[in-house]
């Protein structure tokens, strides 16, 4: 579904990414883990076409990402960021329906999709009339997920989606997200610094460091056979 081919990115002479290649098959759930600054968020931005790579290319659903198809490709990707990334000037409902309204969906179709997604994400239907500042952190995150899913995308990209939540809400949402991913069967690419979360939500993980992939595979498999000291430190609980 997503193919990242020999991508490289340099900012102000600093190599932040690559050369890096990654293949995410359709229906796979992949987590990218690594310390902050390892290039994992930049990789997501490259896939969305928000950052243009200096070399290499990205192919989404068989289509190489170019300026001309950027908008269409983005609409096949649902993007969820920390705290939902909601627009404060729109109600929760308007946040969720923003792009669909721009595309001219009629009211009945919007309503149907809202009902479906509220049920799917466990979002209180009435709370959708509120402004983002009036919602709890968990509600904002649910609204963010609803917005990402609204156009029924093939791929879901998540950048530290649960980073701003308290531990209890976080654990509950992790469970809900896992159920949702399994039910929908979407291709998921998730960025997190939390290895436990990666193991819980994804089937395989990709360990990144200094803009490159160090090792990939199932978390348990990598933990039992870490490629180097760095991976061992990152993955094995209680390692020095």
């Amino acid at each position, binding site marked *: 579904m997503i193919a990242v081919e020999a991508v490289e990115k340099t900012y102000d002479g600093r190599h932040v990414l690559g050369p890096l290649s990654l293949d995410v098959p359709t229906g796979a759930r992949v987590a990218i883990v690594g310390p902050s600054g390892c290039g994992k968020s930049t990789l997501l931005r490259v896939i969305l076409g*928000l950052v243009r790579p200096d070399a290499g290319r990205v192919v989404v659903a068989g289509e190489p990402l170019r300026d001309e198809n950027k908008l269409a490709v983005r609409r096949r990707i649902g*993007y969820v960021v920390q705290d939902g990334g909601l627009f404060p*000037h729109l109600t929760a409902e308007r946040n969720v329906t923003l792009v669909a309204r721009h595309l001219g969906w009629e009211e009945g179709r919007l309503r149907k999709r809202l009902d479906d997604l509220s049920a799917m994400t466990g979002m209180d239907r009435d709370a959708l009339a509120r402004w983002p500042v009036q919602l709890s952190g968990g509600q904002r995150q649910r609204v963010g997920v609803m917005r990402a899913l609204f156009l029924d995308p093939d791929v879901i990209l998540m950048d530290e989606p649960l980073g701003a939540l308290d531990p209890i809400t976080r654990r509950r949402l992790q469970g809900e997200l896992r159920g949702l991913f399994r039910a929908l069967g979407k291709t998921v690419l998730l960025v997190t610094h939390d290895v436990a979360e990666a193991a819980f939500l994804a089937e395989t993980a990709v360990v990144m460091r200094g803009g490159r992939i160090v090792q990939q595979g199932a978390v348990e498999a990598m933990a039992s056979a870490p490629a180097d000291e760095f991976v061992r430190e990152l993955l094995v609980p209680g390692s020095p």
Partner: protein
Amino acid sequence: MKLAAAAFSLVALATTTASAGRERVVIGSKAFPESWVLGEALTLLASSTGADTEHRVNLGGTEIVAQALRAGSIDAYPEYTGTLREVVLHAPKATRDELRSALAHDGLGITDSLGFDDSYALAVAPGVAERESLRTISDLARVASRAGLRGAFSQEFLGRADGWPGLRALYGIDLSDVRGVEHHLAFEALAAGRADVVDAYTTDPEIDRLSLRVLDDDRAFFPRYEAVVVYRLDLPARAPAAFAAMLRLVGRVDRRTMARGNAAVTTEGGSTRAAAAGLLRDALGAGVPDVDAVGPSMARVVSAALLRHLELVASSLAACVLVGVPLGILAARRRRLAALVLGAAGVLQTIPSLALLALLIPALGIGVVPAGVALFLYGLLPIVQGTCLGLSTIPAPLAESAEALGLPHAARLLRVELPLASPAILGGIRTSAVIAVGTATMAALVGAGGLGDPILQGIALRSTPLILAGAIPSALLALAAQGAFALLERAIVPLGLRLRTHVE
């Protein structure tokens, strides 16, 4: 800016009626009563020949009127040779011929003297003049110290090199006491016997009212300020009959006639038109049509000024928004352009309004066009700044979210970025509106009317009620603008941006 100028031209066109085939003369006058009366007298003379006339009364400083004349916005206006030497030639000692040829170079001509000087002069109380047999300033210098004479002079006269300091040095006058007082109060002090000598303009109505004796400047210290008419050299060919009628005034207005004309407006509070008709009767005898002696009521003057003020503010503000917001959007997109646009708008802001108006006259003439364009230029910066600031301070994650959703540029701008920036944009527009309300009082300097008109007239007539009649509505208007924008903010800025309650 071209668009704005065109829009204001349309307004100007709508307010003037052009009639083909007739001679057309536009007379200007400066912002003081003597200029109004002379300008109105010239206008009456020109229209008595059947010409289509207009009197652009109460224009700002000499620069404004002179520029308006060069630009062809007016055809003629009353002026003084001393002022022309200072402002046009920058040579106070220039001869009449030098002055004439310098003006001809600009396509302008001057008439011979209308018959009086409006120069600085020293005036003494009649009793003192009689007792000490004072006729000249030299007489005054001879007796001043012995007789213990006291002077009460205006601050300006005390400060100018061609005023008291120079006069005292040349004549060797030794007054026992010299005080700086407000010009008007000096006459009161003299009438009350607390001063003996005052400075005066030779056509000051107070001279006749108090029967003061004007001392002859026998050593020719004061520059000569002969009253003349300055006109465009194409006027005699374009409007020969009207021009000939105007020339009838040359040599016919003596000091007393002018002083009576001034008194009719200043101390008697009559209309300029009635004063001009009186002046023509005194100067030329009969043959002047009777005119309405009563001017329009204060309420009508103020409401007309208020309406024009609102028109100027509203049209310039609309142009500011239409141009400023897109410029702000561009500036937010391109850093280098931002520096350029904000820099240029900032420089415009620093140009004094009188100078900016004078700069605009050659291209735009006088009236609402240059006034509107000046207001537009002054109002632009806050809106560009507000828009640029509002857009460039949108948090990066939000801007990125809008992009990642797959919204195209225009939709991102309209649905996300502009609404998020709306508080800052509206703040810029509010600042611009308040600036416009205040600055629009300057529009009166170029004959565009507005609340500056009663203020300028009030200053010229020393009439506090008239000044307040312009200043109070202007201040109230600024407050009203603030209030209107507070309401507008509730209507425009999305509620979600105004709420500050975080539920956790």
